[in-house]
């Protein structure tokens, strides 16, 4: 499988003709159009600590797989627009977004489109944002389904630092500051999203 690392501003069209893993670290801007051709797989791991505006468009044909693991920690403005089109049959699309919005503004929009007359596709949108220090979060996990033969699930949650987690860590002798850091780092899964991080 190809491994690609992107760590600069990126405006691009990507045509996936080999199974690939793409690591994107700390980009300010990303405007990317991805086409995944028949029988190909693309995994994107992304970790970001900068404010940013992202536009990602994904088009998948037959028997393809796209997994997008995106985590971020933002104290400022963070906007993510993902547009998915499942044009063929038997494809999977999994969007996993974990974010910590630390007093900033986060807008996460995911539009999953499963086109007419397609069959046996799977679409999953899983968005979890931890909102701390009075930030503002808006999530839209949209699904536009134009076929009856599809598995589609979406979930979105905005939470604070879990009080039970903190109590558990306190009960091991860990103070609130270190406890919160452990919880946030675990939630963001940073080590697994940075190339060579694990």
């Amino acid at each position, binding site marked *: 499988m190809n491994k690609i690392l992107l760590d600069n501003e990126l405006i691009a069209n990507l045509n996936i003709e080999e199974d690939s893993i793409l690591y994107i670290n700390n980009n300010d801007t990303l405007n990317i159009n991805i086409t995944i051709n028949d029988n190909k797989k693309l995994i994107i791991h992304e970790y970001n600590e900068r404010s940013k505006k992202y536009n990602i468009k994904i088009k998948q044909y037959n028997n393809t797989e796209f997994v997008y693991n995106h985590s971020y920690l933002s104290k400022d403005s963070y906007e993510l627009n993902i547009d998915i089109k499942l044009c063929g049959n038997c494809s999977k699309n999994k969007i996993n977004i974990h974010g910590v919005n630390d007093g900033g503004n986060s807008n996460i929009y995911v539009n999953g489109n499963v086109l007419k007359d397609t069959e046996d596709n799977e679409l999953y949108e899983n968005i979890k944002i931890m909102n701390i220090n009075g930030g503002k979060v808006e999530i839209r996990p949209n699904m536009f389904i134009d076929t009856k033969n599809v598995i589609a699930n979406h979930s979105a949650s905005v939470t604070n630092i879990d009080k039970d987690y903190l109590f558990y860590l306190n*009960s091991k002798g860990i103070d609130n500051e*270190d406890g919160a850091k452990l919880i946030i780092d675990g939630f963001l899964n940073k080590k697994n999203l940075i190339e060579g991080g694990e």
Partner: protein
Amino acid sequence: MLEIKNLTVSVDKKIILKDFNLNIKNNEIHALMGLNGTGKSTICKVLMGDDTYKVEKGSILYNGKDLLNMDTTTRARNGIYLVSQNPIEIEGVKNSEMLKIALESVKGKHYDVFEFSKIMNNVCEKLNIPKSFIHRGINESMSGGERKKNELMHLWVLEPFFILLDEIDSGVDIDNLNIISKSLKEYFDTHSCSILIITHHTNILDKIRPNYVHVLNDGKIVETGDYKLAQDIEKLGFNGTNNVRKKKDYE
């Protein structure tokens, strides 16, 4: 070690413990039994400092210090340790990451990676658990028995002085219960500590024989005895024991 006097505790304005009294000395094992909903787990949470529970009145002295004036972290650093009924899973946080911070916090000194690894490896060998536990997420995707063993691993690393076991036997098969009980007994025999066991059954008490068994009802201890009381409860139920025994003034 621990003196609880006239403790009254509420949750959402509902009284759970009412004038609860209990003294536990160093190197003693106490068991607390009672019907569901009588406040057994509440006492563990209050001792650990869970602020969901409001102390209305009463006092708790731990080694002569006012426990109610300590936050949960300070209590843990002073050697109080809770194994809860359903240890929670924390997404993405590994045992090793958490335990290194916890160990340094409890012991008040720095451990380099080699010292820490040695401690962890020794504990895994002692408990006969795979070393992969060290790098697993806290209770992540673990069965009931594995979670309790994981908490036991934390206990052996942190070496507490006062251990609260809140139904450690629930959700654990007999083989794992034997391993857990044996390990706890070994810990008790090799460390200066006290244990409070909350349980419904005598299985665990067969292995970790308590000095005292207390029956909790309506938020207070209504009967105190020795291991024989636990056996009677197992045989006759709580209502049955009420008919054959009289309340003793243990407190």
